[in-house]
């Protein structure tokens, strides 16, 4: 099925007998609480130096644990290892590897401390390193999210490559008697002074007898061959020829096809259902009662969908407010002291500030993730083991969820992670996993592929949380002198973690992320407060999580204040900014867009700045107010992730983030009627299409002190930059998404 499948089968075939031929990992173990999973059941003649590199007589295999949702991290992880391993990307095999704690994500811990991401002080750094150690010790989570792949992998995977290289050199030295210092490496082989070239694969057996070399130094970026230069993604040919296998494409012998229908009032059950018609339909093998609804198993996905549509359900009502207006009312009622989630910024004395007051209120709706690959999973439950093929961002939790349903020991549940056809946070959830486990358990011995219809995917999505922002501020003598923003929303982390069985009573940083971190240190009176509304409909992380709604409220409010002050939107942001790297980002976007140059008739420009996931991003949007509505002409983006590792993929991701941010701002929301989402397919929540897509110019600066990920940060500034541009072009201030409720778009 996948390369992973091949590897797994091989290791299982060889079994425990091979352990004698494996490598001792004494030094590695001393440095980490985790055993190298590749060392278990290692075939004789194979060598593994760390959890990421495996060499045998036929191939060099890189194990790349982060899930690939389209952001290209499979390729990037390979490049990080290959850079130090001195091997070309087309000389290696790659696999996602089996889920293991050794692959815990060390890139997310830095965001869990109460210091601004721009704070490089020793105290802040100590807190981050302490949090990192605590996470590794107590909650090692293998997960992909939070734009953390690069921060997690940047050092770790280059070290993995260097360790493997040095161990292979040591093996060559042991084999030939040539001192290591006279041995070089290139193109997947060691080179000896006499011109002899020994491929790594030929050294596997000897390397397996050595302790991996631990003491390695990394090359400076000036010596990089691959990183920092345009790279060809490892998946690009497959994704251009229809040969990339996604979870939805898995094939197995004698496989059957399933789909589900559960209560659109998410989490509520069915009183009853009538499946008489469904059962008699062609190709239907089984109708199964599952949690909160039914599954149809058939010999073809379309027949399963037709049959599930023929089931008559009597649904229970929703446990959350049935009507959208009541959701907003609940959020609106949350701006009270006992629901205070936090006051992460309180500088100066906002309440005593003098000057002309500006008051405004902002709203961001529920929004569906709606990646183009609908939820799916293929599962085979047998008496002694479970195999599941699907794409997921929290791999170990998938195995635990399944074990809890099928009754297998979790060590006998095996996730084969697959390339994902887009996620945006959708694949952090477990509903399809749990349903696949229920269905597979009822169909033991038969592989079943579960595919959601698009309508079911919309209906069961846990969307982005709704958010209200109440802002006020003051301007005096042409300057912004006070900004006071209160944000209220249901807790996305409590909802999401609750479904993983984790209670989250503590404050939710997502309720003010994207607002409090903006380093406007020269704004003398600044306060950010957030309030936690009671739980409403279930919600989940949506690309950039709280930063999109909070950044929209923050930057829109700032823009209104700047206009009220009569100042220039870019110049005033630069004046207020007290952080060099962010100032440079703003200056760069000004230069790129030739800010201040005269525009044609009916045109307007807006600038916005949001720092999220540690990345300062400034965007300028230019629009034309046409007779048919707003046309988005151009967008300029400047951002700083410290180091751009692949400029082509970087540009693609930034452009995609802008499209995602703009498209949803224009036309997408999820609303509830009778407890059910009103939107069921792409014509209800369309996002951006190509004809609406502006030209997008991207510049990645490299001044920041830390390397960061770029998956999410381009999203939050897009909506406020567009709203600010519309205001500049039309005088109309839009304070609520989606904007097409208030103005037409071409």
């Amino acid at each position, binding site marked *: 099925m996948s390369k992973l499948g091949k590897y797994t089968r091989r290791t299982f075939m060889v079994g425990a007998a091979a352990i004698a031929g494996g490598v001792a990992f004494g030094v590695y173990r001393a440095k980490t609480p985790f055993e190298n999973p590749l060392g278990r059941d290692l075939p004789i003649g194979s060598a593994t130096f760390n959890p990421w590199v495996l060499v045998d007589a036929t191939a060099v295999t890189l194990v790349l644990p982060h899930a690939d949702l389209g952001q290209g991290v499979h390729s990037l992880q390979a490049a990080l290892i290959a850079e130090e391993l001195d091997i070309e990307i087309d000389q290696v095999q790659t696999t996602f590897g089996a889920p293991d704690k050794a692959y815990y994500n060390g890139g997310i811990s830095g965001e869990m401390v109460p210091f601004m991401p721009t704070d490089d002080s020793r105290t802040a750094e100590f807190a981050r390193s302490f949090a990192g150690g605590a996470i590794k010790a107590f909650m090692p989570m293998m997960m992909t999210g939070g734009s953390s792949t690069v921060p997690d992998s940047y050092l770790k995977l280059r070290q993995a490559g260097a360790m493997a290289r040095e161990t292979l050199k040591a093996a060559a030295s042991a084999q030939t008697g040539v001192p290591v210092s006279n041995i070089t490496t290139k193109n997947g082989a060691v080179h000896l002074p006499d011109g002899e070239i020994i491929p790594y694969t030929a050294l596997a057996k000897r390397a397996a007898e050595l302790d991996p070399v631990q003491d390695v130094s990394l090359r400076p970026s000036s010596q990089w061959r691959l990183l920092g230069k345009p790279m060809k*993604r490892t998946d690009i040919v497959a994704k251009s020829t*229809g040969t*990339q296998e996604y979870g939805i494409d898995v094939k197995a012998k004698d496989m059957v096809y399933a789909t589900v229908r559960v209560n659109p009032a998410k989490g509520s059950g069915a009183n009853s259902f009538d499946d008489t018609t469904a059962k008699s339909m062609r190709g239907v093998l089984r109708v199964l009662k599952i949690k909160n609804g039914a599954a149809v198993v058939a010999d073809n996905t379309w027949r399963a969908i037709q049959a599930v549509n023929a089931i008559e359900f009597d649904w229970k009502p929703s446990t959350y407010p049935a009507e959208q207006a009541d959701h907003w009312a609940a959020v609106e009622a949350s701006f009270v002291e006992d629901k205070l989630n936090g006051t992460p910024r309180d500088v100066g004395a906002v309440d005593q500030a003098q000057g002309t007051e500006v008051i405004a209120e902002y709203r961001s709706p529920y929004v569906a993730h709606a990646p*183009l*690959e609908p939820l799916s999973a293929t599962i085979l439950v047998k008496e002694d083991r479970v195999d599941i093929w699907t794409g997921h961002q929290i791999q170990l939790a998938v195995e635990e969820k399944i074990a809890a349903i099928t009754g297998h020991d979790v060590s006998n549940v095996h996730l084969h992670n697959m390339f994902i056809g887009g996620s945006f946070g959708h694949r952090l959830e477990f509903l399809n996993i749990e349903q696949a486990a229920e269905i597979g358990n009822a169909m033991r011995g038969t592989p079943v592929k579960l595919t959601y219809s698009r309508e079911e995917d919309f209906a069961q999505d846990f969307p982005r949380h709704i958010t209200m922002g109440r802002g006020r501020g003051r301007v005096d003598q042409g300057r912004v002198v006070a900004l006071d923003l209160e944000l209220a929303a249901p807790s996305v982390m409590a909802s999401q973690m609750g479904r993983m069985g984790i209670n989250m009573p503590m404050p939710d940083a997502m309720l003010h992320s994207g607002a409090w971190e903006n380093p406007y240190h020269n704004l003398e009176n600044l306060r950010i407060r957030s309030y936690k509304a009671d739980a409403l409909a279930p919600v989940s992380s949506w690309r950039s999580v709280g930063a999109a709604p909070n950044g929209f409220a923050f930057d829109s409010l700032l823009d209104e204040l700047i206009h009220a002050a009569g100042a220039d939107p870019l110049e005033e942001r630069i004046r207020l900014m007290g952080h060099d790297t962010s100032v440079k980002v703003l200056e760069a976007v000004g230069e790129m867009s030739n800010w201040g140059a005269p525009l044609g008739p009916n045109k307007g420009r807006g600038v916005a700045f949001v720092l999220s996931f540690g990345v300062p991003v400034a965007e300028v949007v230019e629009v034309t107010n046409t007779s048919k509505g707003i046309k988005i002409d151009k967008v300029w983006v400047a951002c700083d992730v410290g180091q751009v590792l692949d400029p082509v*993929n970087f540009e*693609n991701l930034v452009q995609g983030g802008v499209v995602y941010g703009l498209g949803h701002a224009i036309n997408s929301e999820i609303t509830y009627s009778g407890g059910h989402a009103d939107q069921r*397919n792409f*014509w209800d929540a369309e996002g951006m299409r190509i004809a609406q897509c502006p030209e997008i110019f991207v510049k990645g600066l490299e001044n920041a002190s830390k390397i960061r990920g770029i998956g999410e940060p381009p999203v939050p500034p897009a909506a406020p930059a567009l709203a600010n541009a519309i205001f500049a072009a039309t005088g109309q201030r839009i304070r609520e998404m989606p904007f097409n409720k208030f103005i037409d778009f071409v």
Partner: protein
Amino acid sequence: MDITVNNQVHSIDVEGDMPLLWVLRDELGLTGTKYGCGVAACGACTVHVDGVAVRSCQTPVSDVQGAKITTIEGLGTPDALHAVQQAWVDLQVAQCGYCQSGQIMQATELLTNNAAPSDQEIDDWMNGNLCRCGTYPRIRAAVKAASTLMKDA
């Protein structure tokens, strides 16, 4: 009934109203053609029927008996890329890649009928194909690059 896909005749035993998409994916195992929406709103399932780009999710299989159907697998292969696929590789278009089979099939018909489309013509022609990752700037560039490749071929 018999259908001809990528120059191969397949005998299938299905309802006439089964959409071509599900015949391709579940009956013939040609999974390069993707299910995205089922209602012709996303274009992920685009294939060629007698050279015309159609949404296979809304094409009953009975309508294409006797027609020549081409899927992404029949356009080119990793070892023998079609010019449009070559352009998609050169421009590094894909992110998640799930929509790109449909994008490529849609673009190929455009370039077959219009060797040098304008920006407006590209936007108009490709507007039915959603890309949730937002690769549109690269799709535009790749269509132009493919136009050049096809001219030079």
